[in-house]
């Protein structure tokens, strides 16, 4: 059975995991430049290594309500796409066995791939490629509809 390296993050009192392979850097709170006419799920950009990276509103994307203005910013890369998103809290990457995960049954959340009990709480493994794919698709649809 294989191990999965995961970054635990916290949003709105909920616990989530992101596959560590998608994480490029952890930053503090970043200055966000809001982009006019941007979609709610990607309201602006921030500066990172000489690039303007889109900042996902992960709370909105996951249907958690209030806008993400977390204390930490996670820079992630899925395929060719570099993004950032804010989280309320995070901790060290952990390794869990694949067979510890079960299908989603406690927290029905958008882009939930599986759940696992971790440190006495139910944590949701996020399907980050699925989420990024949906954001990119929304951009294409908006471009056509413009």
């Amino acid at each position, binding site marked *: 059975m294989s191990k999965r390296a995961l970054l635990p993050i916290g949003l709105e009192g909920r616990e989530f995991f992101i596959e560590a392979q998608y994480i490029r850097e952890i930053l503090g709170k970043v*200055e966000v*430049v809001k982009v*006019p006419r*941007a979609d709610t799920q990607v309201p602006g950009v921030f*500066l990172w290594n000489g690039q*303007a990276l889109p900042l996902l509103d992960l709370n909105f994307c996951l249907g958690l309500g209030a806008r993400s203005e977390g204390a930490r910013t996670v820079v992630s890369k899925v395929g060719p796409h570099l993004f950032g998103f804010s989280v309320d809290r995070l901790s060290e990457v952990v390794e869990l066995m694949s067979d510890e995960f079960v299908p989603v049954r406690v927290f029905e959340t958008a882009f939930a791939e599986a759940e696992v009990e971790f440190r006495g709480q139910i944590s949701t493994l996020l399907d980050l490629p699925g989420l990024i794919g949906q954001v*990119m698709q929304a*951009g294409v649809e908006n*471009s056509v509809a413009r």
Partner: protein
Amino acid sequence: MSRLELLLFGGERWALASHWVAQVEPLENSTNSDTRDLSEWDIDNTSESGTPHRLRMRALGQAISLLVYGVLTPRVFNSDEVLDLPKDIFPRAPVSGLVLLGDNKPPALLIDPMRFTERRS
């Protein structure tokens, strides 16, 4: 390198490539009625305190003037000071880049004037 006009609107700094600008004039002396501004892109300008100016733009295929509330001294920026915005993420945005102003100032958004012609036509 790019020579950019630095403009004020909605309490924010904006940039516009100088080659688009034919003339800058105070609003009261202008007779051009086809004036556009960034409020049509949902930028709030209800509390403007600056001096209104019109920028007559050229090479857009139609007569367009842009209303702003302050015109700063144009500057030349190096290519590493003007960052592209990912167009596939922001296809409806009337801006194409981010301009690093230095001195701890927040970056300015680079206006893409072609979006005005797309919107009107």
